[in-house]
């Protein structure tokens, strides 16, 4: 099995060919928005950070920004900074350079003399980059070069019952083909962490899975919150979920049944192939962003209640086993798994169909989120504490 992609100079394979206009600080967001809006083939996103951050948050911002620039769906990046921010263009360029040798340009609004001068210069750079990007030709690559992110959000009873187990079949198949799948959302594994930990490929991975759960519970305790108390919620119970183990298994089943090869920090690229777990919060926009920053070329998002979010760099494929939702929010949903619920297809058969659709998308078929151009304001970076 093969997929279609663009070979980047750093060796990674992209399935899209974007030029990224990257604000190194929030103060450059609007300038970047105008630049990307004027150049067909350029994308940008809202960066809430880059200034007023404690060192830990600055690092989290830099991990995501550099990861987005290094994502193989990006042909090249134009950094736009303000000039006085701690996350300056020079530092950001250096961090990106350490990850990738793809085309990179920088502009500083204070040095250029305002928005108009910056936009004028950026437009020329972006135009040249888009022309160069458009000269790239897609080739066929084995599935070993694909990293798929699996996300779930806006769940209902069909999510844990059908949509996530079907994605588990997809994950298992992709891993068997030598590819990589990544799942995350640590609050949702709590209750089944001992089960997931058993699937760790090494004692270190097993311990790491338990450790990240302990750390999350400690962090939440500091703000007087708990992921366990009151779980499963009365709504979950009314929906048929009896224990927290059952609820969490419904979430982690989207990762399939293969050994977890590595646990990576939020927005970090894995060093191994196969099934990867990333430690992220459950907030969908954040965990999608983090997986994209880690290098996932495509995200499959399971839902039961419906969800419209996208990402500026990667296609987000929305799947559901809730047929009523598929009809009701058809402009947001890409695939209907309800044939499994009807017994007309097995989970494995539906999984094959998803894998085929993934190949179609790599070849250029657009997801609904891409048709809307969603994602610009949906890039969210993890925070460890308040701004300063």
């Amino acid at each position, binding site marked *: 099995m093969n997929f279609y992609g663009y070979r980047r100079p750093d060796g990674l394979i992209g399935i899209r060919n974007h030029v990224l206009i990257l604000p190194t600080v929030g103060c450059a967001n609007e300038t970047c928005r105008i630049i990307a809006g004027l150049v067909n083939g350029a994308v940008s996103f809202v960066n809430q950070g880059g200034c007023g951050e404690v060192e830990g948050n600055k690092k989290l911002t830099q991990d995501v920004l550099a990861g987005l620039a290094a994502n193989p769906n990006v042909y090249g990046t134009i950094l736009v900074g303000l000039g006085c921010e701690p996350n300056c263009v020079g530092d950001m360029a250096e961090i990106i350079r350490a990850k990738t040798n793809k085309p990179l340009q920088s502009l500083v609004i204070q040095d250029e003399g305002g928005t108009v001068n910056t936009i004028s210069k950026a437009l020329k750079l972006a135009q040249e980059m888009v022309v160069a990007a458009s000269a790239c030709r897609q080739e066929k690559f084995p599935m070993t070069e694909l990293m798929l992110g699996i996300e779930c959000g806006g769940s209902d009873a069909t999510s844990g019952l059908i949509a996530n187990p079907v994605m588990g079949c997809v994950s298992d198949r992709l891993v068997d083909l030598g590819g990589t799948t990544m799942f995350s959302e640590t609050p949702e594994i709590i209750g089944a962490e001992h089960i997931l930990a058993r699937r760790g490929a090494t004692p270190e991975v097993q311990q790491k899975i338990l450790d990240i759960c302990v750390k999350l519970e400690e962090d939440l305790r500091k703000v007087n919150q708990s992921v366990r108390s009151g779980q499963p919620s009365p709504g979950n119970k009314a929906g*048929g979920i009896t224990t927290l183990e059952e609820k969490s*298994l419904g979430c982690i089943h989207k990762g399939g049944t293969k050994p977890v090869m590595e646990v990576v920090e939020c927005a970090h690229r894995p060093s191994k192939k196969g099934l990867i777990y990333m430690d992220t919060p459950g907030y969908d926009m954040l965990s999608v962003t983090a997986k994209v920053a880690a290098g996932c070329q495509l995200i499959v998002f399971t839902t039961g209640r419906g969800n419209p979010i996208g990402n500026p760099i990667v296609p987000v494929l929305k799947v559901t086993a809730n047929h009523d939702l598929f009809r009701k929010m058809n402009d947001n949903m890409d695939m209907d798994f309800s044939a499994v619920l009807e017994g007309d297809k097995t989970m494995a058969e539906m999984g094959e169909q998803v894998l085929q659709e993934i190949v179609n998308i790599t070849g250029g078929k657009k997801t609904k989120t891409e048709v809307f151009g969603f994602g610009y304001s949906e890039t969210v970076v993890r925070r460890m504490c308040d701004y300063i």
Partner: protein
Amino acid sequence: MEEKINAILISAADDVATSIVELNKGDIGKYLKNDEKVRVDITEAIPKFHKFAVRDIAKNEYVHKYGEVIGVATQDICKGSYVHEHNIASPISGTLEN
């Protein structure tokens, strides 16, 4: 005529299936196990998306779904009967020794 299934068994090793319609006493639960259709006599009302036992489960036995332990039986559970909070509990926070 091909009969439609009305329940889902996620893993072949599971002790419970999940109904996809409301089932009542006297109905027959039908689900696929390794691509084979299995029939279970339903002994009491099962709300949509709730679970019923696919085998007799003795008190203190583990109850499996997703091929993993989701709970422990707090009483004997007959095949075809409703499985929820009244007869299973979390193996960690449950009512057993631990």
